[in-house]
């Protein structure tokens, strides 16, 4: 409906990276979200396989405290977001509802200087990349447009975290110029279905299957949705060995 939003926001992420003179990373998405969404601070933690994750970026001391409080207390919006797969939007930590939801965390977060907190699980279905949290010093909800922007920053952080994991394991980076992956502005069921099919074809986990799908599209200069459609229609199979040159027509 508003096709320009992801492009505009990815531009802000790229500008953040350029400003510090580094490669675009998930930390840039986290930092860019603060001004663009209109919050006081943000943190980002990367999933580390079932554990609490490790803190990759905090934009201020309060953010760091909020992330660490949840680890120490074993409760809070990050844990809830991981459990439901959806964001946790607590626009007033002083309200009875928040206090009832997090008996220890809500007062501690208020004490630390946060009056509203918004946590976004960095997920694509079953793929878990981490969590991005935003906070405000004053209470108040995100506007619909701010929420939309926050979700797009969370999508960007998800993809960039997954890219970083791929690079750590030696696969080629599937992102295009400026770090923006092609064809992900619209969600398509075929991409999710093809990712699931690839776990069987390649004998890998879901995150690796998604990385292979993206890198195949990138290397062959194809749209992700077109590759996914060919896989779902069984016109294309990918082979187990990532170096195999025989990926192709089924």
């Amino acid at each position, binding site marked *: *409906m*508003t*096709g320009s*939003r*992801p492009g505009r926001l990815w531009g802000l992420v790229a500008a953040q990276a350029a400003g510090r003179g580094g490669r675009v990373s998930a930390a840039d998405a986290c930092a860019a979200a603060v001004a663009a969404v209109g919050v006081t601070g943000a943190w980002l933690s990367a999933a580390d396989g079932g554990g609490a994750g490790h803190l990759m970026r905090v934009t201020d001391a309060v953010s760091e405290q909020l992330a660490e409080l949840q680890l120490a207390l074993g409760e809070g919006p990050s844990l809830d977001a991981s459990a*439901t*797969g*959806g*964001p*946790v*939007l*607590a*626009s007033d930590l002083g309200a009875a*509802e928040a206090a009832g939801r997090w008996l220890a965390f809500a007062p501690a977060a208020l004490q630390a200087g946060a009056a509203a907190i918004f946590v976004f*699980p960095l*997920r*694509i*279905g*079953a793929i878990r990349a981490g969590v991005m949290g935003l906070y405000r010093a004053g209470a108040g*909800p995100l506007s*619909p447009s701010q*929420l*939309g922007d926050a*979700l*797009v920053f969370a*999508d960007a952080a998800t993809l960039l975290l997954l890219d970083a994991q791929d690079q750590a394991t030696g696969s080629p980076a599937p992102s295009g110029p400026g770090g923006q992956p092609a064809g992900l502005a*619209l*969600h*398509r*069921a*075929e991409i*999710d*279905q*093809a*990712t*699931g*099919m*690839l*776990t*069987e*074809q390649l004998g890998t*986990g*879901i995150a690796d299957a998604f990385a292979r799908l993206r890198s195949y599209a990138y290397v062959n200069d194809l749209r992700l949705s077109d590759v996914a*459609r060919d896989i*779902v*229609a*069984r*016109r294309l199979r990918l082979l187990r060995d990532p170096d195999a040159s025989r990926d192709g027509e*089924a």
Partner: protein
Amino acid sequence: MDGELLSETFVELTDTMVAGFDVIDFLHVLTDRSVQLLDVSAAGLLLADPRGELRVVAASSQAARLLELFQLQNDQGPCLDCFRAGQPVAADDLAAAGHRWPRFAPAARQAGFAAVQALPMRLREQVIGALNLFRAGPGPFDPADVRVGQALADVATISLLHERGMRRSDTLNEQLQSALNSRVVIEQAKGKLAERLSLDMDQAFSLLRHHARSCNLRLSDLAQAFIDGSETLTGLTAGASQQRTPGAGQARQQPPGG
């Protein structure tokens, strides 16, 4: 309108909406029943994602051409119009709707549809999505059917808010995003099962749904466990859901390119 089927449907839907029910499974039942009750060929539910997209959350069929029609409506079409106006939108004859929707109308006709309708999923002043109905033959939609269709769209809205009640827009947005992510998990699991057992996506979905119900699991929890590997589904075979959903196990596989 089959009155008995109608009352059975609403009993089924309210029975399904108990604690711990799976909203995606529920919305699929709702699209299936819409097809049976309302004399239409296909039905889908689209939700408005705050990112600025309409996203399919359930559909009566996984045919690629139908999914494509839902997707197209991010740019134009009855669902987008319905979402913007907050009112039902219908075209009795898509052959005459080329000016209104220059891309959508011909694509829908090519997919075999002659009439289309979109009914809003409304929550007070806010429109959160639409129920999209397609019919193979042209002609006006029966007003009685439209009322039932709107009731089904209202039930879909309520189901999304069921788990924790609707007190704040925060809650609605939490539930909406959680449902959208569940839908992605289920699509990923369908793909994995379809590949393993050489099924099409509709068959894989029926099998997952059947297994979840017979084991009293939430569909999205089963899908997540299957992808994580903690649920192996080794006992499942392509024919396992035949008893409950006749036809699901028949040779209905799409030829490549179909």
